[in-house]
């Protein structure tokens, strides 16, 4: 993989201004993510990790600072987001949901069809393509969300705790599925989670954040070779130590924010 910088964030600060108490959600965040890198942002809830992602996703504007996403071709969208559990649109069928980004870009019908079918098949939803999301389980709905983002073929993928609402079994299955699709496309991914296991399994690098204001505290590299499985991560002694480091960090952050 090349070492070129894909996402470059410089001194991004976001303040939510209100009359009586303004909140600094994130403060002076600077971060560089390489092409093809899988980075997890981990932090206690309320640390502004979602805010950072929403800024990159074009859903919020930073109060100061800037970011760039390196673009290879004009035909590709810069980014696509995998939302938390409710991001699947209930009045569109599974197929229409997966095709959503492509349709919004008004690509030729054959291209949309081909791309949609490919990712429907990848996430194992081909036979459910004509159903509405209400007929599917939570895990299946998140598969739609993931397929929609990959099908859009963006420069980078943003994922906002996509598996947080799933039960353990489904979570493991989807994490491995995500890794397998990712390894095929080698997209640059910025992934938010509060699950340490998830971060260790998925990422090349973990960014630890603190809360109030959200700042970057620490970076941890995850050098386990890919393809990985949860068993490998669990069995790795070094990772067990890293787990504790992150755990202690989160504990102290939660304690601090309680005061």
């Amino acid at each position, binding site marked *: 993989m090349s070492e070129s910088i894909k996402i470059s964030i410089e001194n991004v600060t976001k303040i939510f201004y209100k009359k009586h108490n303004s909140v600094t959600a994130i403060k002076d965040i600077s971060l560089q993510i390489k092409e093809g890198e899988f980075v997890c942002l981990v932090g206690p809830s309320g640390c502004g990790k979602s805010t950072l992602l929403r800024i990159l996703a074009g859903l919020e504007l930073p109060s100061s600072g800037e970011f760039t996403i390196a673009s290879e071709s004009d035909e590709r*969208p810069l980014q696509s987001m995998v*939302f938390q559990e409710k991001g699947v649109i*209930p*009045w569109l069928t599974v197929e229409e949901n997966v095709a959503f980004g492509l*349709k*919004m*870009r008004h690509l030729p019908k054959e291209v949309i069809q081909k791309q949609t079918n490919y990712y429907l098949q990848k996430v194992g939803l081909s036979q459910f393509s004509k159903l509405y999301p209400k007929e599917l389980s939570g895990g299946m709905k998140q598969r739609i969300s993931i397929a929609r983002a990959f099908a859009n073929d963006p420069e980078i993928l943003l994922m906002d705790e996509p598996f947080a609402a799933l039960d353990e079994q489904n979570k493991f299955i989807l994490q491995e599925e995500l890794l397998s699709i990712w390894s095929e496309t080698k997209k640059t991914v910025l992934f938010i989670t509060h699950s340490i296991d998830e971060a260790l399994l998925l990422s090349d690098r973990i960014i630890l954040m603190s809360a109030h204001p959200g700042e970057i505290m620490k970076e941890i590299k995850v050098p386990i070779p890919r393809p990985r499985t949860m068993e490998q991560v669990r069995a790795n002694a070094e990772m067990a130590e890293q787990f504790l480091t992150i755990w202690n960090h989160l504990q102290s952050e939660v304690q601090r924010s309680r005061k």
Partner: protein
Amino acid sequence: MRDEKGVVLFDPYETEQQEWKKQQVKERFKQLLTIISPIFILILWEICSQTGILDIRFFPPPTAILGTFFDLIASGELFKHVSVSLYRIATGFLLGVIPGVIIGLLMGLYAPIRHFISPLVMAFMPIPTLALLPIIIIIFGIGDFSKVVTIAGSVFFPVVINTVAGVLNIERVYLDVAKNYGASPKDFFLKIAFPGALPVMLEGIQMGQAIALLTIVAAEMMGATSGIGYLIWTSYKAFMLKEMFVGLVIISFFGFLFSLFLRGLQKKIVPWR
């Protein structure tokens, strides 16, 4: 109960089957009750009228009303009144629903429009359109159009209010999805705002349909020379109560039919619910 016999006696499959059958019987009983209740009232009415417990002059027995019903059909009078009323309801309903939906969507989507129009809606909504009927007749005459306008006026408000609520209640995350995936304003309207608002909008349309029926009868009583309301009112004034009851039953029948139709329509156009 723990011996071999007990186990055979309480075969779990059979127990559940029995339970299922009991549930089925209960369900059928409930359906039966729904059918029985109107029939029961009709029979009670018939008996009370026949035995003189109810004054036959005010409450003619259902069988006599049925007879009059057939007479009115045979003379063609009923058909005339019903078709006139249905025409007025249909036109008035559409004239209320279509602008209601359009204005409601605009109000829901654009905050300045919402803030500009909603005080007007709030101010006009509490005024019963029927109270404006004299003015409406002065402006639009005694013909069909004044009834159509009256109905449109009463249908408009529930539709507007529900459409606005429908748009405002669309979950934020769907708006984020649309924005993140680069939806154009047109796509946003057609793929997100309209379908998202549809369920609540349809509830408003249901309400509008009920109000349309209430309004047509009253409007035709006050200034009309035909229609179901006219039939009811003139029959009452001439003390032809059987004819009046026929009119009342017709209204109830169409109310039932319309809500059945709209509910069917709802299932068709919001299959994702």
